[in-house]
């Protein structure tokens, strides 16, 4: 197995791209990443996306995006794992290079959510739940997070307002990210006043669904220097799963897949949680953020919220999260999200995060979740 | 009519939805709040309820009281004028839901408000003939009233289920039954019409009273019985006045009909009406007591039943919720909420 490096990154702004189609967004991000890496050709393309069939009436994205990005003819497939599709595509690309079978691989994550009205987007996202035993009963993904959150509040004596720091931190950081969807601050009062989606999950607990694409170029680490002096190495890639339905989990308040995936990643990288400088976690909801911190060893069970309240998640905190806005403020183009997380970690490790720069960042972790935590894919990157 | 083999009720069950629309609300919207009210309030089904769901719960309650294996039920018949499908029986849904399939009969029946009692008649025949050990007879409805019409004050939702079986296993057995039927179009609905049409005062004398009184009188005469021989009597209840007058004309006192008279609290539950009244009576009846039930269905006809309660009743009454429990479980709604729940805003 070879070491793998990221030699180029690209992203579009996250937002409501009424004028741009799915294939246009993907091609844009890919071209920017390839330009960043200084390459004209690649051996393979992996496209991370969830729900293109449902929302864009388009499957078969590997071949389609390859063609429209000027890469017709190469190996290309769509990779899907719910909200973790982007990270899953990265993992496949990583395996392709690490195995020795491919040298230059492009991985792109793309999401086009706004072509359907909100109720249909909600229904589409519910396809990542258990269709027969969750979605069929009228559950949305937000409702599942709400079920977790209410039980969490009940067991740990936490109030809804206590989750505000996750949202406030994300929005504060997004102000310094030109690619972010929402670049204005959110106050604690606004958080508490926000209308309910599925109580206790309110509008400001959930990351906005949006359009966007992000891409990276991979090559063997040993060859990285041929392309760029800003290569960032992937020192760990690990995936794990858990029961899709919340009711089938051994402990509904523990993201077991996130835990397993993080443990494997730490092991592969030969590091401990304390050594991680940045954690781009899957803050699809405030409760997801709290549980991710707990599952990955940054907080004890039931203490994830306290970490945020104590400011430890801020850029200058012990474990900065959502450093460029996170899913909450940078936005959540579902299948693209996993790549945005990695692109942002790369920016941090390259020292290119601007006002959001985490000082001395050397090790960054990105973790994407599928559904309500049934899939977790973690990557650790090193400067 | 008397079958060659005695049969009776092995188990009974009721269901009434939780929502209540006061008649005063209908008056408020349609008459500026003035005028007499035919009842106090009526039961309104929730958005997720229909004749099938009402029938299922009533049937489950009947099964709980009967304590029998549902696989032994030979027919699941539902009488209603608001079956959820025009083609596809409510009976099969209920049969599947209670575990009575696949060796079972399961068609739907319609005869306006007497569809349920017609089913009881047929169930008696099926069981007494030896073709089935038990038969499940259900009368249930979620009928609609035309907005602003007199019937909108009273048209309610609810249902009752009866497991008919051998007399030896019955908590009440049938001494005799009688049906009186003519072609009288007092109330009807053509296909694709959302609301029924009715004949106003024609629904009284030539319809409800002719058939109800004939059925009641003729049954009692056939059996050589008089009103005094009965502990309870229950009639079809389209409003609070008709059953009281019918009872009086047949010689029954107010006390005899009080327990079974539910219309003022839950409205006219159509195919469930007299059958629900009977469940309320059975909830408190004692061994040896005699009950008269006379239904009425527009179109028109009445079924009359004379029942005698057995020793088995006392151990079975409390095995399922009492009808009074369902009636007491109420949440008042206003006319706007009622319009939403009954989907009256969906205009085709």
């Amino acid at each position, binding site marked *: 197995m070879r070491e793998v490096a990221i030699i180029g990154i690209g992203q579009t702004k996250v937002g409501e791209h009424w004028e741009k189609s799915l294939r246009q967004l993907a091609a844009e991000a890919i071209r920017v990443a390839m330009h960043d890496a200084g390459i004209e050709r690649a051996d393979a393309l992996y496209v991370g996306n969830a729900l293109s069939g449902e929302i864009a009436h388009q499957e078969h994205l590997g071949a389609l995006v390859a063609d429209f990005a000027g890469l017709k003819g190469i190996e290309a497939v769509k990779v899907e794992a719910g909200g973790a599709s982007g990270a899953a595509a990265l993992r496949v690309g990583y395996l392709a290079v690490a195995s020795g079978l491919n040298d230059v691989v492009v991985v792109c994550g793309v999401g086009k959510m706004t072509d359907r009205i909100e109720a249909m987007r909600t229904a589409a996202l519910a396809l990542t739940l258990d269709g027969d035993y969750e979605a*069929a009963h009228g559950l*949305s993904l937000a409702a599942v997070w709400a079920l977790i959150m209410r*039980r969490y509040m009940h067991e740990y004596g936490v109030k809804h307002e206590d989750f505000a720091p996750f949202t406030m931190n994300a929005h504060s950081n997004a102000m310094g990210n030109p690619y972010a969807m929402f670049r204005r601050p959110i106050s604690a009062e606004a958080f508490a006043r926000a*209308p309910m989606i*599925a109580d206790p999950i309110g509008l400001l607990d959930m990351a906005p669904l949006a359009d966007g694409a992000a891409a990276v170029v991979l090559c063997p680490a040993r060859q990285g220097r041929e392309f760029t002096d800003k290569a960032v190495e992937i020192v760990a890639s690990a995936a794990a799963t858990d029961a899709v339905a919340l009711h089938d989990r051994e402990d509904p308040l523990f993201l077991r897949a996130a835990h397993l995936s993080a443990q494997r990643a730490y092991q592969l990288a030969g590091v401990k949680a304390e050594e991680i400088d940045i954690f781009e976690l899957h803050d699809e909801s405030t409760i997801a953020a709290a549980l991710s911190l707990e599952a990955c060893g940054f907080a004890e069970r039931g203490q994830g919220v306290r970490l945020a309240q104590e400011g430890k998640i801020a850029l200058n905190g012990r474990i900065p999260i959502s450093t460029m806005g996170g899913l909450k403020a940078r936005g959540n183009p579902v299948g693209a999200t996993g790549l945005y997380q990695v692109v942002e970690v790369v920016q941090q490790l390259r020292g290119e995060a601007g006002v959001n720069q985490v000082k001395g960042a050397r090790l960054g972790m990105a973790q994407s979740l599928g559904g309500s935590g049934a899939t977790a894919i973690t990557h650790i990157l090193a400067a | 009519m008397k079958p060659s083999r005695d049969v009776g009720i092995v188990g009974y069950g009721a269901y009434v939805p939780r929502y209540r629309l006061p008649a005063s609300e209908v008056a408020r919207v349609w008459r500026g709040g003035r005028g007499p009210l035919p009842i106090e309030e009526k039961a309104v089904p929730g958005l997720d309820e229909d004749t099938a769901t009402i029938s299922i719960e009533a049937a489950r309650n009947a099964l709980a009281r009967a304590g029998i294996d549902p696989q032994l039920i030979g027919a699941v018949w539902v009488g209603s004028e608001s079956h959820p499908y025009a083609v596809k029986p409510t009976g099969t849904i209920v049969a599947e839901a209670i575990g009575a399939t696949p060796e079972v009969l399961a068609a739907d029946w319609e005869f306006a408000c007497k569809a349920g009692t017609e089913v009881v008649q047929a169930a008696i025949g099926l069981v007494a003939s030896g073709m089935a050990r038990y038969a499940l007879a259900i009368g249930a409805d979620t009928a609609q009233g035309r907005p602003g019409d007199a019937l909108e004050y009273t048209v309610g939702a609810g249902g009752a289920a009866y497991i008919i079986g051998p007399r030896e296993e019955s908590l009440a057995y049938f001494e005799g039954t009688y049906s009186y039927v003519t072609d009288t179009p007092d109330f009807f609905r053509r296909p694709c019409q959302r609301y029924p049409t009715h004949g106003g005062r024609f629904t009284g004398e030539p319809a409800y009273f002719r058939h109800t009184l004939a059925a009641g009188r003729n049954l009692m005469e056939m059996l050589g019985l008089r009103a005094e021989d009965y502990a309870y009597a229950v009639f079809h209840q389209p409003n609070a006045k008709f059953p009281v007058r019918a009872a009086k004309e047949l010689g029954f006192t107010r006390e005899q009909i009080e327990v079974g008279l539910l219309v003022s609290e839950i409205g006219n539950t159509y195919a469930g009406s007299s059958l629900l009244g009977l469940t309320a009576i059975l909830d408190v009846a004692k061994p040896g007591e005699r009950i008269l039930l006379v239904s009425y269905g527009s179109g028109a006809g009445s079924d009359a039943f004379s029942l005698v309660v057995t020793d088995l009743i006392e151990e079975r009454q409390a095995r399922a919720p009492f009808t009074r429990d369902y009636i007491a479980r109420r949440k008042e709604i206003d006319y706007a909420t009622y319009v939403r729940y009954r989907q009256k805003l969906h205009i085709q």
Partner: protein
Amino acid sequence: MSIAHNWRLRNQRYRLVGEVCGNCGAKLFPPRDVCPACGHSMATPSLTPMQGENPPEGTNQTTAYVFSGRGEVYSYSTVYQAPEGYGEFVPYTVALVKLEEGPLVTAQLADVDPDEVRIGMPVEMVTRKLKEEGKDGIIVYGYKFRPRLKA
């Protein structure tokens, strides 16, 4: 139109039919091909013994199990922004219900106002309409839970 798909689920939807693992005795809802507790294969093996051969040792039979429907609320949430297809029911409350036999199940709550719901509230299963597939499609019935009427 999801006719066959919904029909396949009727036993689970109408009667909470689950199963008991023939190997470890775990009560499962819904039924599965592989026991999540012990890994035992639940389905009948497709390779049946030849005539005259004994069946393999230890083929413990998995049996169907009908849950009582009694349980308590483990968590709940009232949905205000519904997925397409459920908008007409808003607001509705969904819950994780812990069945008295052990498993957790996801379902809507019925006949209860959102502010009346409590974690730990005893509930019982009722059969209600889950949805209609349009004006000309099937009506999907299934389990919901409501506050217990009888203790």
